[in-house]
């Protein structure tokens, strides 16, 4: 008597589930395929040393992408990473032991730099919800503000850091990976926990999926949007600190190019620009895919004159493959 009912339920439940798993697995499959291809083509690619190298070079982009993913989930876009990272990089290099002043705040200096970054993100969020300026413009403006702050602090003399703790993060290794790589891994886990279990994370999905429904059901959306931009910028700030650690110097251009690199990585990983789909783990896979591509082309020996074009082409193909299962949804958006 009960079995027909069960059958019906199973039939009804299966198709959407299968769609979900295919969408989620697409970028991961692409990552595995690309890695296998490069491993076959190049003996240098498939070494342990190069694997460590790939993970290390993915670290900064991973952290930036963790931040940008939250913004993309809400359906907004964030171009403020270069400015926020630059401001954080210069700030941290002037607050820890350095060659420009007598500051030696250590970890507190790092936290102040991240707080400065978060404040810039808060500014983006406030401009978005209070002045109703599209996120594209507000974040571009905030990026310029960040670069402006960085340039003022820079004052023509490169700040080099001598802080032992910060400098060693990029050099010292634990279980084969640099501390920065572990830090990036912690960010992914933390980002995933926020996305999965906090109200902020779940509302981010809901805002991107159907903002009107959310506000009609009585949720005040604005504070969450501001919080999302603030959180994202805190990640950029940390990324700026990581670049400073890698280069042992505070650079105004520390975040140059990371805005679009992170958006590319997130989208390649299956986080949609339209919001509501994807997430931290998708984006992390996207970062690895992009990093493996960059690394693999050097290892295989693709001419530098060809690399940019080839990489762009592969990214387009990867994105097309990743979004293929949900083509209908994409047709609606331009």
């Amino acid at each position, binding site marked *: 008597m009960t079995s027909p009912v069960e059958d019906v339920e199973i039939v009804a439940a299966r198709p959407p589930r299968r769609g979900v798993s295919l969408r989620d697995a697409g970028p991961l499959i692409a990552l595995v395929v690309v890695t296998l291809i490069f491993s076959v083509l190049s003996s240098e690619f498939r070494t342990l040393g190069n694997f460590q190298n790939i993970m290390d070079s993915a670290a900064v982009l991973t952290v930036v992408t963790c931040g940008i993913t939250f913004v993309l989930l809400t359906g907004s876009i964030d171009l403020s990473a270069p400015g926020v990272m630059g401001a954080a990089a210069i700030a941290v290099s002037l607050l820890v032991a350095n060659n420009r002043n007598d500051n030696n705040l250590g970890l507190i200096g790092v936290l102040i730099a991240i707080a400065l970054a978060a404040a810039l993100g808060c500014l983006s969020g406030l401009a978005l919800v209070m002045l109703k300026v599209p996120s594209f413009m507000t974040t571009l403006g905030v990026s310029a503000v960040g670069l402006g702050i960085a340039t003022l602090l820079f004052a*023509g003399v490169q700040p080099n850091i001598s802080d032992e703790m910060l400098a060693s993060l990029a050099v010292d290794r634990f279980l084969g990976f640099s501390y920065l790589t572990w830090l990036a891994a912690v960010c992914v886990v933390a980002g995933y926990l926020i996305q999965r279990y906090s109200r902020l994370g779940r509302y981010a999905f809901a805002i991107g999926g159907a903002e009107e429904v959310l506000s009609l059901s009585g949720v005040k959306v604005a504070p969450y949007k501001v919080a999302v931009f603030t959180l994202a910028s805190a990640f950029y700030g940390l990324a700026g600190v990581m670049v400073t650690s890698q280069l042992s110097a505070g650079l105004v251009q520390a975040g140059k190019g990371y805005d679009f690199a992170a958006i590319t990585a997130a989208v390649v990983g299956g986080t949609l620009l339209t919001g509501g789909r994807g997430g931290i783990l998708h984006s992390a896979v996207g970062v690895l895919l992009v990093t493996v591509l960059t690394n693999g082309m050097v290892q295989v020996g693709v001419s530098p004159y060809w690399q940019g074009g080839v990489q762009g082409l592969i990214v387009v193909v990867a994105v097309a493959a990743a979004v293929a299962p949900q083509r209908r949804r994409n047709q609606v958006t331009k």
Partner: protein
Amino acid sequence: MMIVKSSSAIALLSLSLAAVALTGCSSESNADAKSGSSTCDKSDIKLVGQVRNESNPYEAAWLNGGDAFAKSVGLEQQRLTYDGDSTKQQEQISQLLAGDTDCLVMNILPNGDSDTPPIVEQAQEAGAYLVTQWNKPADLNVTDYSQWLSHITYDGKTSGKEIGDALATAIGGSGGIIALQGILDTGAAKDRFAGLEESLKANTGVELLDQQTANFSRAEALDVTKTLLAKHGDKIKGIWAANDDMALGALEALKAAGKEGKVAVVGIDAVPDALTAIQNGSMTATVSSDGPWQGGIGLAIGYCAATGDLDVADIKDRAWFAEQFLIQKDNVADFIDPKVDDADFACDNLFSRSQGPIS
């Protein structure tokens, strides 16, 4: 009516021409100077230096050199920066030239080759004195314009070869090296790499294992070098970088790999950090274009032309290569604290660093 008006205009014109001719006769030295424009009083001259941004040590030093020259003649330099934004640069120039331009002297770093022609056209029309540096389309001739006094640049082939040779010497004449190229579609990157190729022809024991672009960026150079270290390992004895920023990025990669001091690194530009690295032995060589001198010389040429001490017709090469300096451990101390020498800016000594016309 029309005829009357135009004939009176002609009368006015001929009167003023006569006046110009008369004043021309009274001042002997400038009798054959530019027709119609009188020379400027020192105090009327306005000096402007324009670079991309002050957030890079080289361009900040450039503007400081301009200040030093301005101070030496009792004037002040207006410092302009355009954040590497071509549109912003053109806007600043237009604003500048909308004001009083008779005694305006501009020492400009155009953002790219294609930004130079509009700047030159505008300056020519406004009658301002213009010197440009680094970027200019090859087919744009300085001599076609009376107000464009000079275009100064550096032979990237020479600098690329010089550091290539220094690198070859540092690794004992044999072994593998890698090259970090600049932005591939820029003249500077192409010329410098051509210089390296020339050096490789002369140093047959040196093998170029790999060449990649790191777009003149310190952060990109770090990643690329790490990847190349993973690829070639201990075969890499030296790293040739098309600028110091990339050389410094490569140094960080070596540090992370525990190879600091074991691999020779060379760059170009002589940024302060590179000089420190040469001093403490982690870097081998760099090449200086002398930023402070560049900031001063452009203003000095314009200043001397404006005061009438320099006749444009007397300039032998209007587009010229300036002298650059190879810096290694033995002479790095001279460049740590760059200073301008006022003697370089004397009106009869402006072209002492010329290495000949741009070929």
